[in-house]
């Protein structure tokens, strides 16, 4: 009797989990496996993968050209994460300290960009900063400048574009953390003689670490693999890993090499995720 019940339960669980598990395995894990295999292959004239298997693609990936691109992408992504964090923390703090009604309105205002089309938003920023765009036209009209300033097609433009795109992804987790923040502890620290800086560094920052980490991962990962922002803000002159991968599957037509770089990108992202989980767990245990 008990065995029949247990069997039914097991079947029930299997039935519930099967669709999700199937989708995850077939459309996430398997494709990654395919990339893994193809990354070791060579290419034919059309760029499609053919045997033999070798490490050539990886060797090429560590060539100084691509290595520099990787490092550049990592650097820009780190900068993006830091800048976004520096901007988002005060904003999240302000919203968390606002009266309840204001809080909901402000969070709604933060969520709107979060829910709108990323491509369209980035285009809006590009439109604003173009040589014949509103900013330049305004400045010229006011007589502040004679010639339009070229603001796009620089690393800074890409950085601005990335920060612009990722801001909501940092503000929201930070706000979630700060909303639960125990202000009494903060006041207690100050009563005990800590100045603002120490109270912040020793009390607030550690307690909001989960939000900081979550936001950082949510900003860092898309930035490293960024394609849309780099294309739109970099004008074809700035190259990053996401763009390199895309071109291997487009114009440059070298699927095996593209796979190798994709895998290396996955390694980077996985390391970042592991750091996030390890630090995150440590923080939780410390509390």
């Amino acid at each position, binding site marked *: 009797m008990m065995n029949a019940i247990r069997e039914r339960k097991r079947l029930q669980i299997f039935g519930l*989990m099967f*669709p999700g598990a199937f989708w995850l395995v077939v459309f996430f894990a398997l*494709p990654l496996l395919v990339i893994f295999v193809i990354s070791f292959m060579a290419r034919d004239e059309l760029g499609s993968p053919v045997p033999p298997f070798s490490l050539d693609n990886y060797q090429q990936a560590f060539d100084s050209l691509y290595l520099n691109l990787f490092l550049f992408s990592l650097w820009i992504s780190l900068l993006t994460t830091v800048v976004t964090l520096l901007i988002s923390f005060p904003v999240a703090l302000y919203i968390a300290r606002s009266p309840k009604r204001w809080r909901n309105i402000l969070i709604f205002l933060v969520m709107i960009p979060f829910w709108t089309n990323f491509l369209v938003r980035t285009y809006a920023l590009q439109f604003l900063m173009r040589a014949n765009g509103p900013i330049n036209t305004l400045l010229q009209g006011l007589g502040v400048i004679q010639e339009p300033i070229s603001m796009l097609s620089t690393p800074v433009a890409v950085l601005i574009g990335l920060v612009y795109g990722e801001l909501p992804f940092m503000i929201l987790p930070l706000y979630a953390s700060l909303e639960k923040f125990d202000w009494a502890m903060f006041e207690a620290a100050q009563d005990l003689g800590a100045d603002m800086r120490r109270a912040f560094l020793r009390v607030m920052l550690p307690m909001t670490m989960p939000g900081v980490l979550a936001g950082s991962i949510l900003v860092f990962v898309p930035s490293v693999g960024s394609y849309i922002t780099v294309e739109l803000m970099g004008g074809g002159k700035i190259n990053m890993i996401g763009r390199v991968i895309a071109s291997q599957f487009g114009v440059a037509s070298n699927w095996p090499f593209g796979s190798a770089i994709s895998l290396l990108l996955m390694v980077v992202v996985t390391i970042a995720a592991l750091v996030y989980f390890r630090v995150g767990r440590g923080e939780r245990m410390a509390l």
Partner: protein
Amino acid sequence: MGDRAEYAPPAPERPNLRLGQLSLIAVTLFTFAFLYVPIIVLILFSFNSARTGAVWQGFTLSWYQRLLGNEALLTAAGRSLIIGIVSTAGSVVIGTLTALAMEREHFRAKAVWDGLLYMPVIIPEIVSGVSLLLFFAAGGIERGLLTLVVSHIAFSMPFVYLTVRARLADFDRSIEEAAQDLGADEAKTFWLITLPLLMPGIVSGALLAFTLSIDDFIISFFVTGKGWNTLPIYIWSQLKQGVTPEINAISAVLLLFSVSVIALSLLLQRRRN
């Protein structure tokens, strides 16, 4: 917990606190300006009668009218809608089933699946898109509607799962237990009690999945086949050819659409409360 959230320090007495408060306001204002100025400017200029450039030459609705006559755009929009609806339906079903299993059942491999289900959220979109492309190519599967729908389900299902699971975690099971005490079996309890109460969470997840699908560019770009333009892909191809105010117009429409969706989602959440 609720008490703590309400307690905020009283108005600052010390001078450096006041300066701190001012700088908080300043950064917040700057950030909101930064977030919204490009969007507002874009919407404004979609009404500009000038063909190129940013000099205001007069108000016009002609760009929006041209949208309505733009067959390629309308077809792409239609395709995005179909893919959105179908993939959302799939994501919701799969995501909800998975959430029910993960939140309420216990089985050995649960921890593994917990980790795996976070994976799609963390993978860069370009890697997702490219790997799916290779997967379909290797499997000889022709790229088009099917691959698009399947891929959209793949990336939006985890978000539905997380949303529904969060709602399940907050669920008050005593109602279900009461129903079962009154003689309802498992199936009845689920359909008449659990599911209706879960609906707001499922709808939230559905709206999220739908938005993700409509807005998706990168994965769709790699996974689509000939003649299966989605709206973002169409916009991208237009952008590559050169900016026209029509792009501004369709962007404005999309922005308005997204705002409506989020407003709807929040309204539903508020009704629940």
